[in-house]
């Protein structure tokens, strides 16, 4: 096994860090370090000398990380994983899971492959949880807008709550739009007119 690889995880969210580290440790890697703040990155990279750095694809600190890898001495320089395009499927899988990895130049692909597969699997789960959370928040927001639109109709037209909702629904159906869109337009219009 490849237990002797040093892995650095750059991630500000403590829960996500724990999830990634647990996954890596369960898979047999013990030399894993997490870093939340970029201010310590330069020093950490020099002292810990990671073989692999894992970072969220959308983390704005990636540019800083890349610069540090430029500035590190050439013998042990971490370069973007994507340099190694010998495994395009893995690269694309990493991209769609939202993880980017920087590996020390010259590390053989077969040594890091299992680390990446573990990371990709974990990032995928985290991404799915995040999108479910976003969807729930969005649904709540939609709900609030529809309630406000119902309120406006109840006040202005003296409708009951059920009738107000039915009016929104009928209007949406006849205009081939979503109930939320009609409600949103009504709330915006009411704000402009008030």
């Amino acid at each position, binding site marked *: 096994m490849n237990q002797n690889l040093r892995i650095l995880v750059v991630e500000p969210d403590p829960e996500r860090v724990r999830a990634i580290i647990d996954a890596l440790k369960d898979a047999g890697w013990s030399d894993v370090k997490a870093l939340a703040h970029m201010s310590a990155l330069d020093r950490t990279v020099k002292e810990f000398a990671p073989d692999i750095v894992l970072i969220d694809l*959308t*983390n*704005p600190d990636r*540019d*800083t990380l*890349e610069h540090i890898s430029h500035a590190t001495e050439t013998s042990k320089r971490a370069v973007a994983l*994507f340099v190694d395009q010998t495994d395009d499927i893995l690269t694309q899988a990493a991209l769609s899971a939202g993880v980017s990895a920087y590996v020390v130049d010259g590390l053989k692909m077969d040594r890091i492959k299992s680390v990446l597969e573990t990371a990709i699997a974990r990032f995928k789960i985290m991404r799915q949880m995040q999108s479910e959370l976003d969807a729930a928040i969005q649904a709540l927001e939609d709900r609030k807008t529809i309630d406000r639109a119902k309120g406006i109709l109840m006040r202005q037209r003296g409708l009951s709550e059920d009738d107000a909702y039915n009016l929104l629904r009928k209007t949406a159906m006849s205009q081939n739009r979503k109930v939320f869109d009609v409600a949103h337009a009504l709330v915006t219009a009411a704000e402009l007119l008030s």
Partner: protein
Amino acid sequence: MSQTVLNCGYVPLVDCAPLVIAKELGFAGEEGLALNLVRQPSWSALRDMLALGHLDAAQMLSPMPVAMSIGLGGLPARVDTLMVLSVNGTVFGVSNDVAADIGTVPFGDANALLSALSTRKGAKLRVGVPFHYSMHRLLLSYWTSTAPNLQIEEITVPPPRMADAVADGFVDAFWVGEPWGSVAVGQNVAQLMMTGKDVWQFAPEKVLAARHDWVEANGDASAQLMRAVYKASAWLDAQKNTPLAVEILARSEHLSISPDLIDPALSGDIVTKQNTAPTPVGRFLQFHKHAATFPWRSQAAWIASQLGVDVAGIEKAKACFRADLYRQNLAGIGADMPGASEKEEGALHFETAVASTRGHMVLSPDAFFDGRTFDFS
């Protein structure tokens, strides 16, 4: 007529304006393009998404396609520059402490500023830049290379965090695109000392880039995109459109930045220090006039030479600035073309008329602060 969907990456900075205007004012739609602007969290992410085919085209820092095409910087891939999106538009600022150390230096005097910083006591100057392969970083290196006593440490900081980086003492100075210089001044943590054009008067800042293979396979879409962006840049350059441009940029979902932060870059009225009147800076950010959108092969060569590559690398760089496609795709909509595709970079100290396809065109000054010239022909 069905529209061609085109995914174009960008980073939310004021100089993404040509792309936003091309979409919002319908220049892309007129060309039959459904332009989908995809915001990117970092230049690294944008580069990866373009290179791996998740984006068709992208706004890039002008050194990025050059670096990628010659195999530098993480992800080598043949990437072409279709046209220049903006010229100049960056600022150099220092922390209030450094400003106090160096005393009064006239705004925009690159030579005086360099000597003031060189004689300053203390450790090396830590300068924040947005990305390793950026014009900001190249201009910083070029400018400071003439001052051997000045020790510089380049630190990459995402532009939205530049003001905080100065406030926290993480950097002593910065070279950044707008609005982030104005943001630092607004927070009273820094003073602006000069703009990018005080080091190079005509520096290609952002470019429109696409993978070489994609360009070859999608000639029509490339031409449509170039024409839409060309028209948007012409619209942006008309001074009467500036207030509307500020409003469109502020209101669109592409740039979550308030109008008073967008205005300085577009109007050229730069507040260099809090509670002082703005300093008018001519040609602060250019989108169109003086062949601003033309991808001069000599600009690519200058970038490559600053990256320290050999002659073969310089030739590769020249080839990725697609002056040929620019001529081919934009001649039909009345764009004036310079007679040559290379010029001696740094040779123009004044506005200069040169031969063009429609008679004469006026080129902007392109001199360097130290008067050097670069001939790559």
